């Protein structure tokens, strides 16, 4: 019997023109949680796909419990007890939870699907995970965190011995992450070995015993989590030292630019008041679903508020649609870059100039030379790694895509307010630092910046002031000096806590 449940040696995977993996190795001990870290594009996802049989490696060997295996496809891996939970739940939104869990391995008798048994089985799996929804719920109606639970239940339903989690906490709030941690702990205690990919150091410290680092398609090393410092690990991941992750410049804050007063939208948020001044970075945080995104969507004209007022430079404004917001100089960098921020199949240059095409129109025709020159200049300003402005946006990593979105905002030269919704979501450490640097630079230039974020370190590290929302209301405002993780969490869960205690009191009475 081997010391490892899973061992890979000298794995090389070549895609047309690129080596995605170059002789990498990996060892997974029974019952351990093993973190796999590295920048975007380091080869982690490809590696996972080799393990799960989606990709076939050109070179290298894979051993399962000491025996050499050769997966022809994902089915083989599944049969061997390997299950993967991907970053974006790969689910069927119109089907029920049960159907999703048992997709492709339904419980059948004489060719007929046994719904009752399947629902019972699903119920059991969900109970194991302390899930708060029914197996008959429709998948699309669940939150991302809940959908992830379904994916984990699906992995369990195949009696997997090795579970791979690909950035499971990327879309989760602190609370939901905590719940996921407990699930992972439980799986480990049940003897499941877990490979865990994440960009969050919190995840690694909380869960993993060992960590393997990949960089540029190569294996860098495996370390015990207790024996490596954060700085060392970052150095291994990016190949250089990042001296200061949060380069928050000291900016003299100017006059108030945007002010929101008692803004309400039925069912989404209520009486929200906040303001941001020139050169100020204001953090807007809270649990996912607290109404943060919904508030800024109304400010930008994507949805309509029922009541309340919005002021720009002291004058009341009415933003009926995104075009109004654009004309007034309020720019939103949406949370979902791929869906709402960029047109992925378009070249970078065209993406950047999309909101300002009018500028290049002469006699009804677009002056493409001028357009190209400007987009080139702007893209150089934010330093994307792209080769040309004609490269499609889809060819860039998440971090670089975010930079293109920033360039697109910069193109709008009447810009006064920048609203960034989760600017570093799914972005690796190196690119994060660069995005923070760009944010600092924008603040220096006197733009008013609102940053929505669920990530504590960046909220604490980058904000001059922090608003915390909970259940659709602003529950607290903290200055840079006085903000701590505990205080923010307290405000973020304030209403929940109050409601719960209120219920309890009623029960007592």
């Amino acid at each position: 019997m081997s010391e490892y449940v899973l061992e890979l040696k000298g794995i090389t995977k070549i895609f047309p023109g690129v080596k995605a993996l170059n002789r990498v190795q990996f060892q997974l001990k029974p019952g351990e949680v093993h973190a796999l870290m590295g920048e975007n594009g380091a080869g982690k996802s490809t590696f996972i796909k080799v393990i799960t049989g989606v990709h076939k490696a050109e070179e290298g060997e894979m051993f399962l419990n000491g025996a050499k295996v050769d997966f022809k496809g994902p089915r083989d891996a599944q049969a061997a007890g390997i299950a993967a939970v991907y970053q974006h739940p790969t689910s069927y939104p119109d089907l029920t939870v049960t159907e999703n869990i048992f997709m492709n391995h339904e419980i059948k008798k004489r060719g007929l699907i046994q719904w009752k048994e399947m629902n019972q089985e699903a119920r059991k799996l969900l109970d194991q995970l302390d899930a708060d929804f029914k197996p008959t719920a429709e998948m699309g109606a669940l939150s991302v965190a809940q959908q992830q639970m379904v994916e984990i239940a699906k992995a369990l339903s195949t009696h997997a011995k090795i579970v791979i989690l690909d950035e499971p906490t990327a879309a989760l709030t602190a609370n939901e992450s905590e719940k996921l941690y407990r699930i992972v702990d439980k799986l480990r205690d049940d003897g499941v070995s877990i490979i865990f990919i994440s960009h969050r150091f919190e995840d690694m410290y909380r869960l993993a015993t060992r960590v393997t680092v990949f960089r540029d398609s190569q294996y860098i090393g495996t370390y015990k989590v207790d024996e490596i410092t954060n700085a060392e690990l970052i150095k291994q991941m990016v190949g250089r030292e990042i001296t200061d992750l949060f380069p928050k410049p000291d900016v003299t804050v100017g006059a108030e630019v945007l002010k929101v007063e008692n803004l309400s939208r039925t069912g989404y948020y209520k009486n929200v008041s906040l303001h941001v001044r020139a050169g100020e970075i204001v953090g807007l945080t809270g649990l996912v679903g607290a109404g943060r995104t919904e508030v800024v969507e109304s400010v930008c004209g994507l949805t309509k508020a029922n009541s309340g007022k919005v002021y720009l430079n002291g004058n009341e404004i009415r933003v009926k649609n995104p075009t109004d917001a654009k004309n007034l100089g309020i720019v939103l960098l949406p949370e979902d870059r791929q869906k709402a921020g960029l047109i992925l199949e378009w070249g970078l240059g065209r993406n950047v100039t999309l909101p300002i095409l009018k500028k290049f129109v002469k006699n009804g025709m677009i002056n493409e030379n001028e357009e190209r020159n400007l987009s080139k200049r702007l893209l150089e300003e934010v330093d994307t790694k792209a080769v040309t402005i004609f490269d499609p946006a889809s060819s860039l990593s998440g971090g670089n895509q975010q930079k293109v979105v920033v360039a697109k905002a910069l193109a709008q030269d009447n810009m006064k307010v920048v609203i960034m919704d989760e600017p570093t979501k799914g972005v690796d450490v190196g690119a994060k630092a660069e995005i923070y640097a760009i944010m600092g630079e924008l603040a220096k230039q006197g733009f008013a910046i609102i940053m929505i974020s669920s990530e504590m370190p960046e909220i604490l590290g980058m904000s001059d002031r922090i608003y915390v929302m909970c259940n659709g209301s602003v529950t607290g405002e903290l200055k840079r000096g006085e903000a701590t993780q505990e205080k923010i969490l307290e405000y973020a869960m304030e209403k929940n806590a109050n409601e719960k205690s209120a219920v309890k009191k009623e029960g007592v009475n």
Partner: protein
Amino acid sequence: MEKKSVWKKLTSSRETSLVIVLLVLVALISVKNPSFLGMQNILEILKNNSVIMIMALGMLCVLLIGGIDISITSSLAFAGMTVGMLFKNGVIHSMLLGFLIAMAIGTVCGLVTGLIIAKGNVTPIIATMGFMYIYRGFAYLVANSQWAGADALGDFKNFALESYLGFGLVNNVLIIVLICYIVFFILLKWTKFGRNIYAVGSNAEAAEISGINVARVKISVYTIMGFLAGLCGALAVTIYASAQPNMQQGKEMDVIAACVIGGVSMNGGRGSVGGALLGALILSVIAKALPLVGIDALAQNTVKGFIIIVVIVLNVVTQRMMDKSNLERREM
């Protein structure tokens, strides 16, 4: 940045594969029937398919924004029939006025369709299916169990016989087709509106956030489609020298087929004027060629459908190869 060689540029374009398909088709047919390549014959084919060719431009825009319009031949019939009846009853005599009225009717039809789709949030296929019946019904109502024949149309029918717009060399109808293609080529390639069409079709959400009025783009596109359908209504009346309420019925599928053969994506965002043109040409050549090479009239639809499938499969294969070669360039 490396300059691509002309050869590479050619081979990396979907249009090239269509040109090859077209050339092969033409070559095969002219072997069997040398008269096929005669100038007269070519111009005749173009003229007879001008309605499809023009409407393919409008359909290209509709498909680019991720929509579809199957009501076009109905609004065509409504516009054409109205003009035919106006001539027949002696209400109008001017050819220009006939064209203007037809175009106006088509434009209004398109505008209404666009409003329902964009403002009423109705799925395009459903909305235009409804209008397909409504506008066709209007054509029958206008006709009132009559039709306008060559005698009733007077000078109007001569437009398609003469060539004064083409300085006596090329038929008037073909000049109209040419103008339409030039205008749409410029529109889609070099204007803000054209870029907005691609943006809405590729990613409506991103377009909206970038400050593009998505609803307005949609309404405009359906209106343009209607305008072209109206124009084609007048053209069809003059080409066939008759106006009947069932005119061009079912041809909307040929228009869509022309676009699809030309590599226009049904999901929006992908397609070009060149593609639509080649698609329409391939379709016209097929239609004309089948009887020439002696395929029985009864079998023609089957053969046509089969060829459409083959061309589209070829198209998908080239697209995949292109995507793959793009991926190879991608740095990881």
